[in-house]
């Protein structure tokens, strides 16, 4: 590796590591002036706080729900667009940009009004209202990831080959297409997970108690435990991503090589 590349790498690493280190140092301080380093009391406070477990569970389940709904909705849609309706692709790509352009505050106000008349089990719970909002929020990330995945394979030939061998549409989708866009689906899922785990505005305005809301509350009320909470949330999110990666790659360790070797 060239010396300039090493310098750049070190600079980038510093940019990411210094804030994390500062947070770690802060989280190990005692909540009293002049106390010596170090204590794990802040971590203990977080771990023994039932609100922490409650909100992280909600956010994590919401992320999973968002991922599942997005994949079920978008994989067959994008497959069909690539196969039969290629002229619709630019239209969908344009639609996918809307969540980037519309500020979350505008989106949440709009959604609260539009969905006002919906049943209470939908409107009043995070699993209904928030999940719907998060699917919209994750749409661009899912779409562009999946779209890139579908572009990397010969959708027409694979579909026709599968059909000529006797496979129906659902079998073709599940056994031939999905395994070959797995990397793209994983990438989209990571992004959706990261978005949902960190989304504050919509949850706050719609008055749902998710993990970012709890984090903000702790940050305002207890400085040192907030540092511990931030680091723990990092670890939990990374852990969740690693689990997704393991689940996604469990059946095909050579997937990366497959994609690299594809025409």
């Amino acid at each position, binding site marked *: 590796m060239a010396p300039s590349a090493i310098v750049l790498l070190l600079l980038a690493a510093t940019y990411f590591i210094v804030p994390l280190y500062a947070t770690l140092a802060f989280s190990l301080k005692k909540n009293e002036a002049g106390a010596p380093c170090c204590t794990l009391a802040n971590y203990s406070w977080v771990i023994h706080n039932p609100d922490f477990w409650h909100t992280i569970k909600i956010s994590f389940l919401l992320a999973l729900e968002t991922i599942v709904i997005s994949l079920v909705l978008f994989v067959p849609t994008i497959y069909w667009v690539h196969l039969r309706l290629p002229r619709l692709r630019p239209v969908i790509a344009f639609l996918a940009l809307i969540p980037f352009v519309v500020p979350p505050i505008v989106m949440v106000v709009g959604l609260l009004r539009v969905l006002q008349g919906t049943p209470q089990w939908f409107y009043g719970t995070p699993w209904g209202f928030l999940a719907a909002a998060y699917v919209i929020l994750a749409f661009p990330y899912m779409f562009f990831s999946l779209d890139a995945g579908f572009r990397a*394979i*010969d959708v027409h*030939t*694979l579909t*026709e*080959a*599968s*059909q*000529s*061998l*006797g*496979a*129906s549409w659902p*079998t073709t989708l599940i*056994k*031939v297409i999905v*395994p*070959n866009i*797995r990397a793209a689906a994983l990438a989209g899922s990571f992004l959706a997970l990261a978005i949902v785990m960190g989304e504050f505005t919509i949850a706050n305005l719609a008055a749902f108690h998710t993990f970012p809301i709890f984090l903000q509350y702790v940050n305002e009320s207890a400085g040192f435990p907030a540092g511990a909470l931030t680091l723990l949330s990092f670890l939990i999110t990374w852990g969740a991503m690693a689990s997704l990666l393991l689940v996604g790659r469990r059946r*095909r360790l*050579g*997937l990366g*090589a*497959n*994609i*690299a*070797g*594809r*025409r």
Partner: protein
Amino acid sequence: MTFLQLENLHRDFGTVKALNGIDITIGEGEFLSLLGPSGCGKTTALRLVAGFDRPNQGRIIVDGKDVTNVSPNKRDMGMVFQAYSLFPNMTARQNVEFGLRIRGKNRTARRGRADELLELVGLSHAVDRFPHQLSGGMQQRVALARALAIEPRVLLLDEPLSALDAKVRVQLREEIRRIQLELGITTLYVTHDQEEALAISDHVAVMYGGVIEQMGTPSEMYTAPKTPFVAEFIGTMNRLESTIVDGSTGEIEHAGMRLRIDAARGRAQGERVLVLVRPEALELAASGKGVSANGNSVAAEVLTQTFLGPVTRLKMTGGLIADMSTARASALPVGSSVVATVPAADAQVLSLPDDAPLLAAQDPDGL
């Protein structure tokens, strides 16, 4: 006995008539090639047979049953595609097993059949490799094994060799023919390579502009083309646009010269005809040493010499082309004057309608 029948098939794409009423019959266990240039409709016809597309008119009958509106996954047709079509997430064996899995065969039966077919295509050493670990030729072999695994009623091959290099292409086409004969499977093969079609088919159908120009055995297609297009598309031809001078003797006039052609006998005086002579049938002699153009001969000058391996091809003034052994060709260098004798018995004569679909400019060195 007819096994596969394409009956008056029409397929339009907007204003373009990709197929304009084609009729083809293939007997059980026969190998028929659809041959033609790009855009002639051959792949469209194959896709209709596979069920990936529907005709605007006409029927497809397999073994007496109309399958025109049957979906592709219920047609029992094995297909090998032009593009590499192996499922990238599966090994060679899993690819071959796929159709059997769909049919609910148990693991032992699937594996046995897959291994047997991979051995048939010479890939028993590569059963556990993924497509990206296989060469193009190997991938097409696996694709062939995969198509055969389901014991299809008809095997369809859509230019399966076009992405391969020349040597592999020849090897694989011979293997396709060997396996087809061994299994006795009815086969429809699409290609634009006339040499390939002639080498492996029982019958060849030459297509042009959405219609079948001529259908026959490879030898018939080569020796007795029925249209100017077929004559030029299959192999290379000297094309002498001529007028009948005397139908009783077979005398014609070409570029101010009189020639006698057996096949011109019985034609009406003044009729415009195309006299066709294969390059290997044209006899050349140097004209410098007192030999002059006479009888059935045309005077010409050698413009280029192209070494083609077994023969050398000479291109001359007047658009004449002759193939001869390299040793003989060395005596007729570029620039030398020659006399080209048109053999009276070997030339063919076709009527020349005004709208005859002639190849505008055939590359004489291309074939």
